[in-house]
């Protein structure tokens, strides 16, 4: 796992990371900067945001305060960041797939391109089963879903969570049925599969890695086109092994400020991202230990990479009848 993450990270850094060494930032924040995490304290967005905050603090010599404003699938906190003064003192954290689809879902008037994006890590989704479940590989599970899927419960962290999106994209790809059981977060969803309340869990690999290492869960596939090897477990096959036509975008996590934020703030943040975040040992270590991908990208590159996931997700919602408007009308073409 570490090796592959290292390779991917190196590729990402090599491709996008410039080597500007300038330390004379044009933006010197005079008072504490707020990062709004629109999810509860302790979750995966929160963890990422706190590490990034500490790195920014060290570099810009000013406090970065993380404020948790959970509620309504992250749209409340994001709305508050959108409505705050655009002076660089209020940022939002989260996952790109969420902020890019609020408009389609009719939850919030905002699009991915309305934000200055700064990503730190990317997470892959995975499907795992209770060790006592009869499915030996993903192919068997797929067959079972096709045969009597309505009786096979799958736990996720809820509507529009990474796990639910993965299930919906499988369903869009091949005719399966499943019983969707929602939990309060990724962790409870994983625990439900460990305890046997549900046989199958679909969530981020980050949230499963310890249970997989402890042999309390058996991973069947990850949403990717390459396998991932996990320390203490071995290789987890990609879902494309069984569903070759399945698009496999990753979900980027990071912080962002609305467009309209002063140029010197964004320029400074871009430099910090290249000088500090791209070399952050803390983030690399965190990503490696949580089986996430280290992805310090920003700006247009970040937008283009994340837009793949947004396109896939937005159309999933639309096809499932959950969207308030067609993604076409807001410039999100089908992936």
């Amino acid at each position, binding site marked *: 796992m570490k090796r592959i993450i290292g390779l991917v990270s190196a590729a990402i850094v090599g491709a996008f990371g410039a080597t500007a060494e300038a330390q004379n930032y044009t933006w010197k924040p005079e008072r504490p900067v*707020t990062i709004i995490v629109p999810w*509860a*304290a*302790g*979750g995966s967005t*929160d*963890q990422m945001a*706190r*590490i990034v*905050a*500490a790195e920014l603090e*060290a570099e810009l010599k000013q406090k*970065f*305060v*993380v*404020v*948790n*404003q*959970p*509620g*309504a*699938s992250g*749209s*409340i*906190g994001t*709305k*508050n960041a959108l409505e705050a003064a655009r002076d660089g003192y209020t940022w939002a954290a989260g996952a790109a797939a969420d902020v890019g689809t609020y408009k389609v879902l009719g939850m919030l008037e905002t699009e991915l391109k309305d934000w200055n994006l700064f990503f730190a890590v990317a997470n892959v989704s995975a499907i795992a089963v209770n060790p006592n479940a009869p499915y030996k590989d993903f192919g068997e599970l797929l067959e079972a879903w096709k045969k009597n899927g309505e*009786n096979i*419960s799958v736990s996720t962290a*809820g*509507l*529009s969570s990474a796990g639910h999106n993965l299930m919906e994209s499988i369903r869009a790809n091949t005719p399966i049925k499943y*019983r*969707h*059981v*929602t*939990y*309060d977060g990724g*962790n*409870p969803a994983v*625990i*439900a599969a*460990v*305890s046997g*309340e*549900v046989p199958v869990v679909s969530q981020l690999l980050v949230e499963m890695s*310890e*249970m997989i*290492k*402890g*042999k*309390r869960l058996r991973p069947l596939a990850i949403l990717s086109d390459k396998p991932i090897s996990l320390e*203490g477990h071995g290789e987890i096959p990609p879902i494309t092994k069984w569903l070759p036509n399945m698009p496999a975008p990753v979900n980027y996590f990071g912080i962002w400020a609305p467009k309209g934020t002063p140029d010197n703030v964004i320029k400074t943040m871009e430099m910090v991202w290249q000088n500090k975040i791209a070399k952050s040992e803390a983030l690399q*270590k*965190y990503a490696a*230990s*949580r089986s996430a991908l280290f992805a310090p990208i920003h700006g247009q590159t970040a937008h283009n990479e994340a837009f793949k996931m947004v396109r896939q997700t937005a159309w999933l919602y639309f096809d499932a009848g959950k969207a308030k408007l067609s993604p076409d009308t807001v410039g999100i073409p089908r992936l």
Partner: protein
Amino acid sequence: MNVFDNLQMLGAAFASFASPMILFNVFWATLLGIIIGAMPGLTATMGVALMTTLTYTMAPNSAILVLICIYVGAIYGGSRSAILLNIPGTPASACSTLDGFPLARQGLAGRAMGISTTGSWLGTLFGTMCVALFTPVLGELSLSFGSYEFFWVAVFGIVIAGTLSGGDPLKGYIAGFLGLFVAAIGQETNHNFPRFSFGIKDLEGGIGLLPALVGAFGVAEVLQVMRGPAFKVVSSKVDSVIPRLGDIVRYWRTILRSGAIGTFIGIMPGLGEDTAAWTSYAAARRASKEREKYGKGSVEGLMAAETGESACVPGAIIPVLTLAVPGSAPAAVLLAAMLIHGLNPGPLLMVNTPEFLYQIVAMLIIADMTKLFFGLTLVKPLLWILLVPRERLMPVVFVLCTVGAFAITSRVFDIYVMLAFGFVGFVLRELKFPMAPLILGLVLGELLDKNLLRGLNLSAGDVTPFFTRPISAIIAAITLLSILWSIPAVSRRVISLFQRA
């Protein structure tokens, strides 16, 4: 692994914390925790989250130690304001107002704080023992509680809340269901449908527990005090600050029971210190020989609430260590901090780094002892609060309530929630509706709602698993008996039946 190995690891853990710098950290962190807890609106969760960022650059063990001190201190600190002002500093200490404040009004604030200190100290100690001895076993226990069981736990909580209000069970139930209703406001989980939000975005996120709590207790209390005639300044006897050994000896059963309940509730994911305090209190009341004193200044009741909530802290850490599942909200942040610092709790902890478990035990004991120290030394200065006339105290309390309601999420909306709960809470109090079930309903509403629907979903609409799964069946039976017992006609008959026999 034998006992000797374990003791050796525990000793090594203590030794590793024996440096002046670390002890200095322990002192300020515990004190800060107590202050955070005592301020209405600043919670243990928020304190731990705040310090996670601030201790980021420390060595992992020092940082976790600071966070545990904050956690332990904040849960304890909340009862200071509960006893002195009738305003719980954190949701966990709402139960301590029931008997703590009446004791203070009787001039026994010093004694009340002494009891709460002892109870809290023993509670955390009891819980810590459980961490040291049973972590692997108890961690697994939380896996046997699924959606069906949590549904009954929530129902049980509402039922005991109704009966524990003392005066009028009917009004208790009404308040409880009003609380449940308030918890239903906002988006539900299955379809993200916003219930009762009337198109208001802020309402879609639901009513925050904290602004509601600060309103129902803090603001309503301010109004009630200002309405009443000036109360006589109560001079508290300071001589009884040192807890009496007699209290411990007399109530050892209550202490053990509350410790066990608190630890157990802590282990359950989704249930926190607040539920632990209520449950211990209800259990103590049921078993008590002096039931009539409850709610009027019962030493035993206060002891039960304090021991329960403080035993919950180590309890909540148990599943963090074994399953990487937090048992309470502050424990969730603690887990995040461990992950950020590269410590990997989870099923492999006992295999890979068993010494980490003993470091946590040592940290809990150190934090608990420091808490005891501050608990005993801070009583005298705190008693000054009681001497401040209400005209001068209440405006400051109201300001703190406002800041507290706003602090968690920085939304002006939360201030309005606080005001609304303050005014409605005041009216309900005047009509003799108890506030406790209202708050408990708000706490448990989400648990009940989600687990009921999830259970039905899992079983495809079949209700039998709610009654046939062994643990479900037991809690369901206890709940049913509690309801029957609260109807006077039934309980009288049962008692007379036994007396005749």
